C-alpha cells in the first residue's frame, strides 16, 4: 500500500477511536465492561504527529470529507464503495501510480481503500 494511503487509513482508524471515546453512550458501554478510557492526551498527540506526515493536499481532502461524511476513508469490497454503496469503475483497480497514490470514489468523493486484492 502506498505510504500516503497507509497514513490516511491509520488516521481514519484513530479518528474513529477518538469519536467513539467522546461519545457518551459508547463510553458508558465500554466502561460498564470494565475498560478504562481515561487518557485522551496521547490520542491527540498521536493525531498531531500523524497529520504532519500526510501530504497537505491529501490532508485537506481528508478533513473536508471527515467534516462532511463523518468518515473520510472507506473500503472497497468486491466492486462496491462502502461509503455510498455504488460500484466503483474498473479504472480504480488499475495500478496505483506514484503520481496518484490516493484514489477517491467518483460518486461520493470519499478516499477508497482496497480491502482485499
Amino acid at each position, binding site marked *: *500500500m502506498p505510504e500516503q494511503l*497507509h497514513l490516511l*487509513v*491509520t488516521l*481514519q*482508524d*484513530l479518528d*474513529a*477511536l477518538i469519536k*467513539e*471515546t467522546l461519545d457518551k453512550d459508547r463510553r458508558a*458501554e465500554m466502561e460498564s*465492561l*470494565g*475498560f*478504562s*478510557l*481515561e*487518557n*485522551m492526551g*496521547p*490520542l491527540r498527540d*498521536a493525531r498531531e504527529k500523524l497529520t504532519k506526515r500526510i501530504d497537505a493536499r491529501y490532508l485537506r481532502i481528508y478533513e473536508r470529507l471527515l467534516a462532511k461524511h463523518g*468518515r473520510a*476513508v472507506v*473500503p472497497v*469490497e468486491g466492486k462496491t464503495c*462502502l461509503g455510498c454503496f455504488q460500484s466503483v469503475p474498473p479504472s480504480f483497480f488499475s495500478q496505483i501510480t506514484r503520481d496518484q497514490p490516493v484514489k477517491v470514489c467518483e460518486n461520493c468523493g470519499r478516499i477508497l*481503500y482496497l*480491502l*482485499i*486484492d
Partner: protein
Amino acid sequence: MTIRLSEFFEEDLFIPALAATEKSAVLRELVEALVRSQRIREGEILFQMLEQRESLGSTGIGRGVAVPHGRSLAMTRLAVVFGRSEAGVEFGALDGKPVHLFFLTVAPPQDRSNLYLPVLGKIVETVKSARNRRRLLSAKDFDEISEILEEADHDA
C-alpha cells in the same frame, strides 16, 4: 442478543503459549496470527490502532485477563485471537497484576453483524468466573478450549 462465544473462537487464532514477554510484543504477536491466517493484509494498521487504544487506558481488566480491542479498516469481519502466557506479561492491568489470558477482539468499522460489543461483553462475562479462567489457562488443546466455551455458553 444471545451470543455463543464458542462460535467466535477458531483454532488457527489460538496461541497456546505466547512468545512475547512485553505488552507491545504481545499485541504484535496477536495481530500476526491474523496476518498469518490471511484474515488481514495490513497488520501494521491494526497494530497501530491497538497501541492507540491502549494509550487511552489498558485493556487489562484484572484477574490476569486482557481484552485488547478496537475497530479498524484493516478488518473485513469480526475476529477473536486467544493467546496465553503461563508466566504472565506486565500489561498495565487495572489491578497491576500480570496478564495470562489475552483475547484480541477486532472488527471492521462497519460491522454489519453488530456483534462487536456483545462479543466483548460475553468474553468479559465468561472470564469473571475463576473456574473458567483457570480452565482456559490449563486447557491442553483447542478442543478443550471449545468445550469450556461451549459449557460457558450453555450455563449463561
